[in-house]
């Protein structure tokens, strides 16, 4: 039993890989369903229409499934792309409910849609080659995708030191690393030692509240994929920041409450990709902030964001009604006022104007007094102790 269970686990694992294994053994023909169409469907559709899920009753992961269609009928009409449901949905406006893939999912390239149409026009064959069909050109992949996987030993070491490390996403090998848990003891030596084996992977690095200095900044200059660096509440100053050099990838730099001064403006402007810098609490002159802000595409947060302006204030509301206000409840009712004289002015009350405080209803002489009452209800309520 134990052995068969183990075998089951491994056969499951093997099944996950089998598609690739077969593909490697028998190279598919270059202009076939298998080499052109199946990969497009796999990447764009099968997440929701495949072996695991069948939204709208539709599966697109195998020829049999494609032929079977879904709840809306046949997914395609061989030889007629224009009448094929699959093609129709691809071309609907993005905002349309029926557009596929859904608007929050990655959309196929026009070249991929063209390949699908050509294949359907040729009769949608699952075997053999289709004239003119080729793997569509893709936009170059972002650099992140060519980052090699991190060294497991280096990751284990980070985690043993209680440093947070996490891939940017499930599909990414780039890392977000946060020293928050051990910030007070994250010295240059420790930071550079822990990260030395992870140079290619570090994309977002948080060192806030740590004692890092020039050594860490010089190390950061050697991180090819670094896009966000958080140095908030550190002792980093102009000399240390200069060690970062003209880093080609850094986009966000958090320098709030550091020792950065006017002398770092040129350093900051030398960062070609910089689009957001936080400098609140730094000793920068208004001129320096203005110089930074003059650069297009660079947001500078200096802690001086103005409050949203009040554009319009409505007049004090006037309530009008054709209906009479019903009589207030008689004394003894929980909704009856507890006072006969206005708590603010001492004048006789008008039951139209009331407030409730701590379960007791107070009536006032005019519409203005409730507002005054609100400023310190406990004080006014105390004038009528215990009356209920």
């Amino acid at each position, binding site marked *: 039993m134990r052995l068969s269970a183990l075998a089951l686990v491994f056969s499951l694992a093997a099944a996950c890989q089998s598609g690739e294994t077969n593909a490697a053994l028998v190279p598919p023909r270059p202009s076939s369903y298998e080499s052109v169409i199946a990969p497009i469907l796999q990447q764009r559709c099968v997440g929701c229409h495949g072996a695991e899920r069948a939204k709208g009753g539709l599966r697109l992961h195998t020829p049999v499934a494609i032929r079977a269609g879904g709840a809306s009928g046949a997914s395609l009409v061989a030889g007629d792309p224009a009448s094929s449901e699959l093609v129709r949905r691809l071309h609907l406006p993005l905002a349309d409910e029926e557009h596929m893939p859904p608007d929050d999912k990655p959309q196929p390239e026009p070249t991929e849609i063209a390949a699908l149409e050509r294949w359907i026009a040729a009769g949608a064959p699952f075997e053999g080659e289709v004239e003119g069909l080729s793997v569509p050109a893709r936009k170059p992949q972002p650099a992140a995708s060519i980052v090699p996987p991190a060294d497991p030993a280096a990751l284990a070491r980070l985690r043993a030191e209680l440093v947070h490390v*996490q891939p940017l*996403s499930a599909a990414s090998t780039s890392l977000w690393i946060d020293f*928050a848990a051990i910030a007070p003891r994250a010295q240059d030596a420790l930071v550079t030692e822990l990260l030395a084996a992870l140079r290619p992977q570090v994309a977002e690095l948080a060192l806030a509240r740590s004692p890092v200095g020039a050594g860490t900044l010089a190390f950061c200059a050697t991180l090819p994929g670094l896009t966000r660096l958080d140095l*908030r509440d550190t002792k980093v100053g102009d000399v240390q920041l200069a060690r970062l050099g003209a880093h080609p990838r850094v986009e*966000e730099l*958090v320098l709030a409450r550091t020792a950065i001064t006017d002398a770092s403006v040129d350093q900051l402007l030398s960062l070609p990709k910089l689009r957001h810098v936080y400098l609140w609490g730094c000793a920068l002159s208004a001129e320096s902030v203005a110089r930074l802000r003059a650069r297009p595409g660079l947001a500078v947060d200096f802690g001086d964001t103005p409050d949203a302006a009040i554009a*319009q204030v409505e007049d*004090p509301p006037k309530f009008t009604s054709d209906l009479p*206000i019903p009589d207030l409840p008689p004394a003894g009712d929980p909704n009856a006022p507890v006072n006969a004289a206005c708590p603010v002015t001492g004048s006789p009350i008008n039951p139209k104007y009331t407030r409730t405080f701590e379960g007791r209803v107070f009536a006032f002489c005019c519409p203005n007094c409730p507002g005054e009452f609100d400023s310190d209800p406990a004080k006014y309520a105390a004038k009528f102790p215990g009356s209920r």
Partner: protein
Amino acid sequence: MNPIHEHYLSLTRRRFFGRAATTIGAGLGALSLGSLLGGSNALGAQDTALPQGPHFAPKAKRVIYLHMEGGPSHLDLYDYKPELRRRFNQDLPDSIRKGQRLTTMTSGQSRFPVAPSMFRFQRAENRTGGVWLSEILPHTASVANEIAFIHSMETEAINHEPGITFFQTGNQQPGRPSFGSWMSYGLGSANANLPTFAVMITQGQGNMQALAARFWGSGFLPSEHQGCKLRSSGDPVLYLKDPPGVARLDRRRMLDLVGALNEKEARESLDPEVDARIAQAEMAYRMQMSVPELTDFSDEDEATLALYGEDVRKPGTFAANCLLARRLAERGVRFIQLYMRGWDQHGGLPGEIQLQTRAVDRAQAALIKDLRRRGLLDETLILWAGEFGRTVYSQGTLTETNYGRDHHPRAFTVWAAGGGIAPGISYGKTDDYGYNIAENPVTVHDLHATLLHVLGFDHERLVYRHQGRDYRLTDVSGRVIPELLA
């Protein structure tokens, strides 16, 4: 199946997947393994397998969820209906109410007189033509550029208990994991010295409903994912201090011994709750050092304290908890849940709601400003929501300056701000009475799906298998609202 066989099977699976899950970004998705395994296979926190991690690159890394317990009146805070002033004390038309169910607190009323808000509204500039806000939220108006107001929120629950449960867990019945627990499960901790999911409570000014600890419970997720409540007076976390006469080294030795016994038990019983127990004991040991520093505000400058207002000096106030939330956020805590009690204004609303807004308005605006200037707002998601809104008709006697409002689940306002959220917008509309949704309804599942999206999760794929089925925070529905995304 024979339980002994099951035991061996589990042991084998555990070893196999436990190894596989420790390699980062490996071809075998850690996500599906996590789901198969049923969560963490922790044997001590340091050996914990990596959490699922987000499906795609997240816009926000953490959440501050400001829950307004009781159901704040959207009509007196956010939903501007000037035309209602001319309908003061008129009966709510049947064409609006449509015979829908009411709570038994007002279903017996002979009349449903329209109670327009007695507060003045003002239009604050934002990025899309401005937003009308009540005069009792002046500080919130000052950060209108950062906020996405959702005026067309709806819920299925009409009472507090199921309403809060629905917002917290995606289901009205108790038993499912809280939003924060899902995030702890999905994202894991970013600071191993602090809880991943922290909860703080502020006592309100008026009518308060019970807050059950299960609102931040982990349901069927392993219990290390439950929220950790930070107390406002005395020790923030109970039983953290070493007992008198016990040195820290002795404590360490004791924990090592207990840990070894627990690990033996975990190997034999394979009960995940033993693993959770081990992880929590280690966490508590580390929290002995990190929590006192966390809750000590003496390193905050005067200007920052002033930003949050005088209340910040009183532990447990909403202002103090907002500052604590910022301190937790900057230390990597993933999910920070604040509860502000006391919005349940069935009577005497105009007076009571001002006491509530005085407690929250300055502090919540300060939180946004403070996070923004520290470079934290862009990666922190803030949600402000009650469990429902309140009725346009008055509960009890209506006068020109006094009224009450009953629970109203059909339309109300919530707001979000920060990482990944479109700043300075309004979404959705209610009808002329603020009673029904006129445009773009947002369900609780839609809200959860959208927030999960910002956090890097496909809400349909963040699942946990329990009693034979995959559970999601969004149950079986939910739609990401693209208009709310930055």
